[in-house]
């Protein structure tokens, strides 16, 4: 991953009108001139962002900077007021959440939302990539191959011993890992991970950073939204700083930490 900030988009781009510029061939996610306006409040203000294949990217910013809104726009939860949102060359602004998830964009929410009434194993089984229509679900038989994949993911997230427990009784950290495991079962090309270490112990945080670094293995791209700068440093990746719905700075963690604008709005406070 390049340390330079040459790949950064120009800061002051006019809103894109008409046909979008085609994204670069290796861009997996391509946001250009995206704005989201809620009742006159601009949650996103002309945001542009490119995530390349296999890239691990951290997105930081103060509360209300638009980090979660950005994820909402990518995953189809919120429609942008204007701007281009593409996954490779597919326009995401016209698709719903399920369609976007099936394209290969997985999302982990800030508040872990696993299915409490189901076991850890069943949670992963639901997430496993397989036909999703009611009939297929009714006829579904767990194959040996599927069992192996679930077992591998259980091992990866360190929950093998808890496979038969209901998700309701997991600890906070375990729920976060289960959610990451559910993301992995979907075999997505892009993982959006919202504040994965909020409320975690130091040890759990380290474990999570290692897990995310392993996941961004050159094939999958991972976008991590985070507050915790130590955690972001542990990720060792390019950092995008958002502020008031727009990009403020982009580059290595050292670069952005020394950027006077960033210091002013975020770190300095």
């Amino acid at each position, binding site marked *: 991953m390049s340390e330079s900030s040459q790949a950064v988009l120009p800061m002051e781009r006019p809103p894109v009108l008409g046909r979008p510029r085609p994204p670069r061939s290796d861009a997996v996610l391509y946001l250009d001139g995206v704005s989201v306006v809620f009742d006159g409040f601009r949650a996103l203000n002309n945001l542009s962002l490119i995530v390349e294949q296999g890239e691990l990217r951290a997105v930081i910013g103060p509360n209300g900077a638009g980090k979660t809104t950005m994820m909402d726009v990518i995953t189809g939860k919120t429609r942008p007021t204007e701007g281009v949102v593409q996954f490779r060359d597919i326009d995401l602004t016209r698709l719903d959440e399920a369609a976007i998830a099936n394209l290969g964009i997985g999302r982990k*929410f800030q508040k872990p939302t696993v299915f409490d009434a*189901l076991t850890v194993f069943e949670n992963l089984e639901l997430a496993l990539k397989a036909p999703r229509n009611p009939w297929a679900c009714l006829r579904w038989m767990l194959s040996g191959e599927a069992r192996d994949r679930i077992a591998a993911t259980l091992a990866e997230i360190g929950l093998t011993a808890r496979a038969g427990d209901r998700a309701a009784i997991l600890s906070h950290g375990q729920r976060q890992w289960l959610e990451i495991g559910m993301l992995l079962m979907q075999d997505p090309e892009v993982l959006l991970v919202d504040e994965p270490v909020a409320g975690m112990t130091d040890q759990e945080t380290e474990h999570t950073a290692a897990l995310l670094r392993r996941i961004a293995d050159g094939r999958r791209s991972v976008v991590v939204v985070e507050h915790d700068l130590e955690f972001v440093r542990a990720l060792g990746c390019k950092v995008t700083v958002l502020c008031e719905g727009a990009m403020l700075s982009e580059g290595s963690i050292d670069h952005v930490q020394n950027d006077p604008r960033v210091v002013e709005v975020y770190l300095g406070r």
Partner: protein
Amino acid sequence: MSATTLAAAPPAGRARVTLRLVLAGAILLLALLPALNRLPADAALHVSDFTIAVTGKWITYAILALSIDLAWGYAGILSLGHGAFFALGGYAIGMHLMRLIGPRGVYGHPVLPDFMVFLGWPELPWYWWGFQHFPFALLMALFVPGLLALVVGWLAFRSRITGVYLSILTQAMTYALMLAFFRNDMGFGGNNGFTDFKELLGMPLNTGNARAVLFYASLAALLGCLWLCARITASKLGRVLVAIRDAESRIRFLGYDVTQHKLFVFVLSAMMAGLAGALYVPQVGIINPGEFSPGNSIEAVVWVAVGGRGTLAGALLGAFSVNALKTWLTTVAPEFWLFVLGGIFVAVTLFLPRGLVGLLDRRGTGR
């Protein structure tokens, strides 16, 4: 909502085995009733005609309860309009029974039911065509409720109408249908509905034989529906439904089309309710627009809540126990019934969120 999750946890281990044994025993006992009815009237184990008639009716209620439980207990679709699907199924079979009366009606018209002759209608309206055939009527008893559920469900689920708004919508649906069926010009007998049925499948109604046949048909339908529901809830589809119930917006991000799954279960549930209605009408000998009344739908939801939603045994237990209480109380002190019903619902909601089934398994660990 933690309460929802808790309420829906099926009993675990021994409680589960107990529940299944009780269920199997109850069904076996039910199957014996018509045989006991054949014993001489002075025999110790003789079962009265009244008991057979009432129990047969409860079995159809149990099917209705099962259908509500599938939609509400598992998929979180709280329909307060399932009585409409039940009534539509009943009307479909009622139309067949009316056609079978033929010239035996008061006016002796060879084709037209009495109320049409009375209204001066020259011929059978098109939507009565085909109902002289039993298979067609039975098909319609499933198809019409299914179609209504498909249309209403599609409009509601597509717009992501959930929770109390969906309940109000379904309540409005059954109320609107009640008003429509009260009208004479609808061609469904207005407020009198259909009655004076003579026979079904060549079998004169109101005989011990017909009662036994309808009883066993209802029991078979109940077992069939129970098997189907058990099959669904034990499959991955069942787990998807539970996930939709507990975190609908979350499962969309796993790539599940929530609308599709809800529609599937809602339509299936409506068809089960229609089947229940179709078995109910020949047993009670009457169908009128009162069956659409919103109170009926709410009462059926209370059965499921009392028994324990999210467990199939709970739906059956609730339907039988509340109706047994109703039958007893409406003979002893009819004026109190509605208060008791309301009281039960409040009490169950406050003190027994998992219903009677929850009593079996108070630890609440579930699964």
